[in-house]
């Protein structure tokens, strides 16, 4: 019996989501800071060539966010498309990992490769979490707003990760 009103519960959920977003931001900020430090202070710093599939995946992820937004305005029709695109992103990323592996780029090949695998892998782990939340929200529609916000946030983190890996 936590004895709180539905209104309070939903306020709690919003705070929970905000706090979760803040911690994930700090997590990726930690990695970005590490990337910056490592890329500027190491004796050698070679870049790997990212597989072009990554760009396709980016488009898929953006499309899934758009589908979810479209669904929000159309009574939830399109949620399932959004989720399917989310799964497609995870599969696409896995394929990108295999492409890199086939090209002879491994986690320990060089620091840039390590960061690529680590950052995108960690992002994928969070995306899987987001997918689970979306699937749960299909059953419990009142959770959809939180799952969707988190999903958009993961899209933002993806752009951020790509920017760190390519620009910094």
């Amino acid at each position, binding site marked *: *019996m*936590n004895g709180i009103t539905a209104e*309070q519960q939903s*306020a*709690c959920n919003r*705070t*929970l989501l905000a706090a979760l977003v803040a911690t994930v931001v700090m997590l990726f900020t*930690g990695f970005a800071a590490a990337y910056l430090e*490592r890329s500027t*202070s190491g004796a050698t710093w070679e870049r790997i060539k990212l597989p072009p599939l990554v760009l396709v995946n980016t488009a898929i992820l953006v499309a899934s966010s758009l589908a979810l937004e479209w669904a929000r305005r159309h009574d939830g029709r399109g949620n399932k498309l959004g989720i399917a695109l989310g799964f497609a992103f995870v599969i696409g990323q896995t394929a990108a990992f295999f492409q890199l592996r086939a090209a002879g780029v491994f986690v320990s090949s060089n620091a840039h490769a390590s960061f690529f695998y680590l950052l995108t892998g960690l992002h994928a782990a969070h995306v899987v979490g987001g997918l689970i939340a979306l699937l749960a929200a299909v059953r419990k529609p009142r959770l959809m707003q939180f799952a969707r916000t988190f999903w958009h946030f993961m899209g933002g983190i993806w752009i951020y990760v790509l920017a760190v890996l390519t620009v910094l």
Partner: protein
Amino acid sequence: MSHAEPQSFISKYIFSFDHKVIGIQYMITAIVMALFGGGLALMIRTQLQHPEMGLFAPEAYLSYVTMHGTIMVFFVVSMAISGFGNFLIPLQIGARDMAYPFLNMLSYWTMVPACLIMIASFFVPGGAAAAGWTMYPPLSAVEQTVPGSGIGTTLWILGMALFIASFTMGGLNFLTTILNCRTKGLTMWRLPLATWGFLVATVLGLLAFPPLTSAAIMLLFDRHVDTSFFVTDMVINDQLLNLGDGTPLLFQHLFWFLGHPEVYVLVIPPLLMTMDIIPVFTRRPAFGYRQSIWALGVISFLSMIVWGHHMFVTGMNPYIGKYFSIATVIITAPFAVLGVNLLASLWRARLRPAVPMLFALAVISAVGFGGFGGLFLGTMVSDIYFHETYFVVGHFHLMIGTVTLLGIFAAWYFWFPKMFGKKMDENLGRWHFWLTALPMIAIFLLMHLQGMGGMVRRTFDPGTYEYNAGMNMALRFPITIMAYVLFIGQMIFFWNIVRSLKRGEPAGENPWDAATLEWITPSPAPHGNFGAALPVVSCGPYEYSVGEDGFGYLPQSGGGEVAVHSPASAEEREETGGTDSGETGA
């Protein structure tokens, strides 16, 4: 999200959703872990006192120091704070439970395996982690450097991962509950200071832990996937190890970005619980309530941008060091506000020297001593000399050991009646107080002296260095003796708990005549905390010294009606004659 009153033993006491049970579970686990941590401290002291006896190998010594730090920081102080937070927050804000009771239960049961893994790491080949609680690579990353860097360190990282997961779950609960579940009338500016402390510490922890998580993940990769984030080529035992060209300094930055705020996560809740307790025993409002909270906010913000003062001697660019040094010394200003408010709370007090108050007074002393030492470590010039010495050991033990534990003891004696419905024995409590506060503060002050004498820390045998021969060696003996006294003194505490649980004086609802919400429910508080209706708050938490003769107080949910504090008031009236009643008042 709601849960009914549990019936079976398991759902009531083991996998309980009730915040009070979970709080007490945390505290008991912290006490058990404190015995381990304290035992390690005694072994360390014994080794330093008699290095010639060859008690254990130097590598084992490093393991014990590492695990003493890890256990005390994360599994004793942090966990005790989680305990009090869980127990107090819903009671103090007039809620029936945490916002997410299941998450709360999960948080505790993630912590238990973390504790077990940490203890188990002593019994694996190579022993427990030996790179210090800070886990700097390469000691923590390269197996050849030290035996504990094998499976022991892997277990350490695993245990910490579980700890961070548990802390995050608990923290999310604290945050959402305090922000959203306060009862009617309880604005943020009417929150008891203890709850403010938990709130601020939680926010700090939630923001500071993730970068450590990132560091831990990279460390794992360096250890097991041959990446080179932190490790570089090195020669060990005439053997060249090709490890790449990482940068160990990076780990230190990430670690201390957590490490410094973590210090405040440890210190703020006990300090604020102390500030919560003092008004009850001075019968005066807490001095500067709002200023304290603003100061707290400034301190917390600054604590996130000063981590580099732990790294003055690491080869970091000295210009950055200068910035960190200045930012650190700026913290003195808001901290002085807190210190002055603590002292000013005693002004014109009708002090009731009950055991919680004794501990609270000791906290004020420890904050003073500890804070003063911090000035010399925050200033780059003096830190370069002090950094590798016992001055640092003495300083951080005063702050994150003494202040925290004394504050936690104050809180334990103060809220014990609410937890178990009985009062702790006052006489045993006084013995415990003197045998805790005196040795604790003395030990760490003497360590400052050793540090000024240049005694290096992390050393296995101080006799190796000739310059230690005079004062430094002589001071070891009183320190070691007092460490033993301190440890044995805690037995009185345990005896007091057992005795009070069995035969303690029944406490009643409000044994201390305190004004905050937790004291209007029966002791121990029932499932759901408050009766059919939740209390409605009409005033701030510290409205003491009110009423006609100044002996009354306003309970937070009393609707503005003055309650007169009863038990000691007759004698007190006689003693003071009510002379200062004219200038009291909220």
